[in-house]
């Protein structure tokens, strides 16, 4: 019980220091709930009444998570590889969030960007220092163009971006399927929807390429693109006039209009920026991770990105850390599945729990018995000026 008291003290301290507190406690709470899930799902041991054994499974599962994500250079490489598209799509959702828009369409934008990057990747055979940047950029342009669609629809007709982006995700999916069957994209010797290979000069160089004896380190320089994107996002948000407009518009659209900002243009721009970042994620996957395009290279990344932006509170570095955390869970989860009987699906549960706890800060505060002023519960009695 002393441990509980100490934990509570620590929790209390975190709670008082910053808004970072909720995030940390949410992750911690998710891990605790996850531990119970592991124990409960360890049927064999539970049936034998071996609760201690089930508890040990928790320990080894979580240990495998750590080892598999940061335990070795190979693990770190795997984490980076998983995190790269998550960072870019996270920034995509975050930048739209900042402008008050809910971009569910990172998946579609990623597909559009990836297909554009792919085309430059296999159709061109130039020196890498031209082809790679061009292909990466093509991804951004393709994503931005696709992102512009819901932006324009919203600005012109008021169609809600949540609806349109979800629909556009489906359309992008089928568009990719069709494109991959066209002569332009389809690999010559194949009948299934799979694209030509990106030329060797078009591939994003491997991050650890300088270690010639470690071909197993798959991380690529898409990660550098992702880090640069975070820095650009930070600069844009805090140092540019348009970033200032985004923030004002996102927090108070009426005030933005009063201040003479072109809110319709901002809506389109925000969705285009979001699309560009997601498009870069497509570039990174196609030019870095795979080297070709398949039907589903975007996976669930665009949806995970929503959770990441939420977890990172849409700040540049918060989003970066959240994406790294999710990437680490992904990489560690594979190790966990290999080492223990705990399936990688637990990672999905953990992420869902983290998001749930983030979304319910009062629950977190109640669980950890953090003393808080009930201001966030809403004041019934407000002064006239307040």
């Amino acid at each position, binding site marked *: 019980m002393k441990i509980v008291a100490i934990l509570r003290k620590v929790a209390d301290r975190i709670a008082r220091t910053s808004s970072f507190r909720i995030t940390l406690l949410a992750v911690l709470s998710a891990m605790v709930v996850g531990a119970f899930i592991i124990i409960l799902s360890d049927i064999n041991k539970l049936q034998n009444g071996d609760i201690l054994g089930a508890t040990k499974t928790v320990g080894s599962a979580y240990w495998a998570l750590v080892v598999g994500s940061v335990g070795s250079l190979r693990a770190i490489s795997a984490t980076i590889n998983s995190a790269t598209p998550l960072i870019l799509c996270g920034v995509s959702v975050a930048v739209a969030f900042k402008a008050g828009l809910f971009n569910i369409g990172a998946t579609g934008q990623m597909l559009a960007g990836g297909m554009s990057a792919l085309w430059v990747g296999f159709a061109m055979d130039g020196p890498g220092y031209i082809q790679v940047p061009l292909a990466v950029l093509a991804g951004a342009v393709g994503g931005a163009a696709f992102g512009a669609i819901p932006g324009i629809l919203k600005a012109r007709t008021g169609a809600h971006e949540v609806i349109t982006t979800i629909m556009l995700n489906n359309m992008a999916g089928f568009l990719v399927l069709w494109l991959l069957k066209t002569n332009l994209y389809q690999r010559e010797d194949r009948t299934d929807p799979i694209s030509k290979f990106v030329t060797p000069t078009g591939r994003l160089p491997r991050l650890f390429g300088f270690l010639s004896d470690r071909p197993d380190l798959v991380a690529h320089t898409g990660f550098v693109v992702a880090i640069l994107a975070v820095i650009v996002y930070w600069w844009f948000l805090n*140092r540019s*006039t348009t970033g*200032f407009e985004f923030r004002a518009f996102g927090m108070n659209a*009426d*005030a933005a*209009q009063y201040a003479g900002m072109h809110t319709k243009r901002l809506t389109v721009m925000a969705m285009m920026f979001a699309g560009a970042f997601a498009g870069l994620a497509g570039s990174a996957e196609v030019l870095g991770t795979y080297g070709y395009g398949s039907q589903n290279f975007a996976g669930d990344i665009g949806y995970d990105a929503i959770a990441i932006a939420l977890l990172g509170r849409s700040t540049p570095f918060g989003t970066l850390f959240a994406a790294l955390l999710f990437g680490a869970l992904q990489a560690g989860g594979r190790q966990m599945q290999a080492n223990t009987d705990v399936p990688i699906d637990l990672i999905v549960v953990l992420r869902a729990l983290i998001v749930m706890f983030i979304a319910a800060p009062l629950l977190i505060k109640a669980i950890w018995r953090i003393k808080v002023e*009930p201001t966030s519960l809403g004041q019934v*009695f407000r002064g*006239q*000026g307040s």
Partner: protein
Amino acid sequence: MQLELRGITKRFPGVVANDNINLTLKTGEVLCLIGENGAGKSTLMNVLYGMYKADEGQIVLDGAPVVFMSPADAIAAGIGMVHQHFMLVPVFTVAENVVLGVEPTGRLGSLDIDKAREMVREVSDRYNLNLDPDAIIEDLPVGVQQRVEIVKVLLRDAKVVVFDEPTAVLTPKEIIEFFEIVKTLIAAGRGVVFITHKLKEALNVADRIAVLRRGQVVGEVDPKTATESQIAEMMVGRPVQLIVDKKPHTPGEVVLEVRDLSVLDADGRTMVDSVSFSVRAGEVVGIAGVQGNGQTELVDALTGLRNSTRGRVALDGQDITSASPRVRHAKGIAHIPEDRQRQGLVGGLSIAENLVLTRYHDEEFSHGIVMDWPVAHSVAENLIAEYDVRTPSADIESSTLSGGNQQKVIVARELSRPLRLSIAAQPTRGVDVGSIEYIHSRIIKERDTGTAVLIVSTELDEVMALSDRLLVMYRGKIVADLDPRVTSAMDVGLYMAGSRPANVVNA
């Protein structure tokens, strides 16, 4: 019943909102709680109503200490509250709203609406509230809606009724009616706590006035002997100029020219109906009127936030009828919006950021797309000092400021550049006495430098005091063009209500 607050202290991170407050309230009297915004009135009432738990001190009811964990406890103990923003269901009838939560039920739990009607009628008759139980809330004027709230509180058997800024939303006539209701409540043996920052009202209705400043009760005064300036001084902590001090104006050339302007609202109703007027340089033109008579739409049209359907707006002879807000800004039009929370400020942005909200694109603050935050910051620091914005730093979120200080941020931003026309809507709504004095002096100063000033306010005293010419708006039309020096507030009030003073009709 006697209600006592003993040594109530409530701290928030960084501030002591209530500092050892002692107050006593007996039934059968009106206690007025007066103080500037941020003085701690709301916090104190939230403590009394069970929303906040006091850090120190206790609430004593008829000699026995009580603890309110929630508003439900407070209601059960006989404390009722009429909020400034009414908590009514607009599509329900009066009777349905009143019984919401304490519904009289028949067999099988069905709502006994006849009983509910009867309950409303009974209370309404007893306190002379004149309510129709079957009227739909959204059809009723604000003053009547407030009476519905009062009935709600009375039906829950409140011995003490707390009113939060009850007159803020009422017309002058409704205010008079409201004071009658308060007297009836007192006569029936209830107690009333009346929260306000309006000195006249406090003196008018209270039996005792407690003055709050910076979380402390700085004194209790007797309304029979106290004067307005005396209370104002206690509220602010220094002598306050209550009358607007202004020299006779010297109007120059016509700056703003409005001709036959018509504006629709979002539902397509004509809110501004062929309005024509002009404002000259060095002149304050006031537009008086009860809220909702087209003032909001007129200001929106003048500032480019809403399209007009007919007519023409010209600035210095140049047509600006369809110019964007930004173009109008560049031409030297300042706009202090009527709702600072909704339009004037971005609460989540810092004070410095809000101080450049309409000007960030000026050469001074940005180069191309690159913001020059150091410059913006130093300008902000200067403005904060010059306009006396009370804040620990320019970097804190503007939503944490009190209403008066938020308004000063807006005034600072809008008036601190060369202007041709300044449009101020409700410039001192919800602003404390000290800040009102300051904002008024700033507006007059702006006039004296030759700016044309248009003031739109529902506060009759304010437009009367500030204006050199006074227009009255009623149902979208300008119904009077008056000289405030020779017009009585009574006459203006009549115009605002859509009638004409008798002497004018005869003339």
